[in-house]
């Protein structure tokens, strides 16, 4: 739709030479999903994404567990971004139960959320590198991610699945001396990711490879309901941290990165700029955070909502706006939990972007959509 087919594809008997390729689920360039692409020579004439290979029914499972015990489950869709994927649920439950969160806990949450965003983006970047055949760009982010994972592990006690946010705050206070270590690691991390420019982002081959491929115009980005880096790469200035600040984001100076081009290169550069921005936010939050105080409100066991109520909360996760719709009927278990995940929303753009594109552009366009198969399947 966005890309016109090359003129020769309008030949009469063109169907005879169209080959159907199953890209996935066991393919180095697909992740846990299948993209059925039909190619004519080097051009993709049709594309049909087929997610669902990691569908686990998290939403159904959530209806059987109470509000607290849902926490380890609902962070499973994106374990690399587990704080952020849990965040809207926790915010929603807090609104349902009418809990006020202590100030320090809000800052701890913001720090954890930003660290987790960087961890996710590093993982994403690593895979983007290997999709483009750049093995160094796989190894460096995968290694440097360790700095932040180490911080998260000091903070929450787990390296990947933290289960750290709970309604009413966070589960444990920061360890002693955390601020210094965090600052040191984050500063070094920022220095490291700035070095990626020479090898990756300013690399002329990469620019030639990804510029003007998979162009998503501003109108289409809005029409498809894309979110996060995909949206911002198309020139829409929309970041929930700024537009709808939750917790203490309104007290922090958040800068939104927007690019106009809307091509794969812009979509891949925006997360990198976001990481630099996250480093700034973490430093600000460390400075403004109350040095002491409670981090968690004590709840009754098995908290329940006040009768029938619905709530829809959104946060800006590593991939974009992540919403959680909770229906409560006054029981300790939620009546219905629906995660509106950014990957699923961005997936709509994939068939439209890949149509008429070259086969060699498929991995870069696909992964630049910031798609996380497990999250889309839930």
């Amino acid at each position: 739709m966005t890309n016109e087919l090359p003129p020769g594809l309008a030949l009469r008997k063109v169907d005879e030479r169209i080959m159907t390729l199953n890209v996935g689920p066991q393919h180095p360039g697909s992740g846990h999903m299948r993209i059925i692409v039909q190619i004519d020579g080097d051009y993709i004439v049709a594309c049909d994404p087929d997610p669902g290979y990691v569908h686990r029914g998290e939403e159904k499972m959530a209806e059987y567990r109470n509000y607290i015990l849902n926490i380890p489950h609902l962070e499973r869709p994106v374990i690399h971004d587990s704080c952020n994927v849990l965040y809207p649920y926790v915010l929603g439950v807090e609104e349902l139960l009418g809990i006020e969160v202590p100030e320090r806990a809000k800052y701890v949450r913001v720090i954890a959320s930003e660290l987790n965003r960087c961890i996710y983006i590093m993982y994403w970047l690593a895979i983007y590198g290997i999709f483009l055949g750049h093995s160094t760009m796989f190894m460096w982010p995968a290694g440097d991610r360790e700095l932040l994972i180490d911080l998260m592990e000091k903070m929450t006690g787990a390296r990947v699945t933290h289960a750290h946010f709970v309604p009413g705050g966070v589960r444990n206070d920061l360890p002693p001396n955390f601020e210094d270590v965090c600052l040191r690691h984050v500063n070094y991390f920022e220095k490291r990711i700035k070095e990626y420019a020479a090898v990756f982002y300013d690399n002329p081959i990469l620019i030639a490879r990804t510029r003007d491929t998979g162009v998503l115009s501003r109108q289409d980005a809005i029409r498809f309901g894309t979110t996060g880096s995909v949206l911002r790469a198309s020139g829409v200035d929309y970041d929930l941290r700024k537009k709808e600040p939750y917790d203490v984001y309104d007290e922090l100076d958040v800068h939104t990165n927007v690019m106009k081009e809307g091509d794969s290169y812009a979509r891949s550069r925006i997360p990198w700029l976001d990481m630099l921005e996250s480093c700034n936010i973490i430093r600000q939050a460390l400075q403004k955070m109350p040095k002491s105080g409670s981090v968690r409100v004590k709840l009754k066991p098995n908290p329940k909502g006040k009768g029938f109520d619905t709530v829809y909360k959104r946060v800006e996760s590593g991939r974009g706006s992540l919403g959680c719709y909770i229906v409560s009927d006054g029981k300790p278990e939620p009546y219905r939990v629906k995660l509106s995940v950014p990957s699923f929303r961005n997936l709509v753009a994939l068939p439209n972007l890949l149509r008429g594109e070259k086969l060699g552009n498929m991995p870069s366009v696909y992964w630049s959509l910031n798609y996380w198969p497990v999250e889309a399947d839930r």
Partner: protein
Amino acid sequence: MGTATGIIRALNSGIKHIALKRFTLRYPEEKLKFVGDGYQFDPSTGVGIAGLKGRHMLFHDHCTGCQLCSIACEGVAEAIAMVKVPEEQTQNKKSIMPQIDYGKCVFCGLCVDACPFYALYMTNDYELSSFSKEGLIYTPAQLQVKPYVAQDSEIQISDRGATHG
């Protein structure tokens, strides 16, 4: 000429990195150092104490067999089962105690949050692999043992790159 400059910059950056230190943690020889003794929970304030969520440790003299940890785990992983223990443990009138199946445990630590008697903590031990499924099931007697952990490697940042020193 921009292309040539970019290519030379990239090659230069690559060659520069050959001189940097390796970042890999060589795991079985080096082990990461963690904060504190593991995740613990203070029921009086309702706030946990930071630490690694590793294998549990059960204090037999505190455990009352109230099953709260088991109930908490039922919604998460169904890893905790209450089993009969010999009568020697005086504190426990019901003489049942948790037994944890680490093949199912997700190390979320909600059982520690649930325990109101300071009986269940988590430790820094994460090396739980076993050749059989039965070996992953830790009985109360095994959970009582404080694990020996030799973890001393920390990330060190210098001009020549970060290493696990």
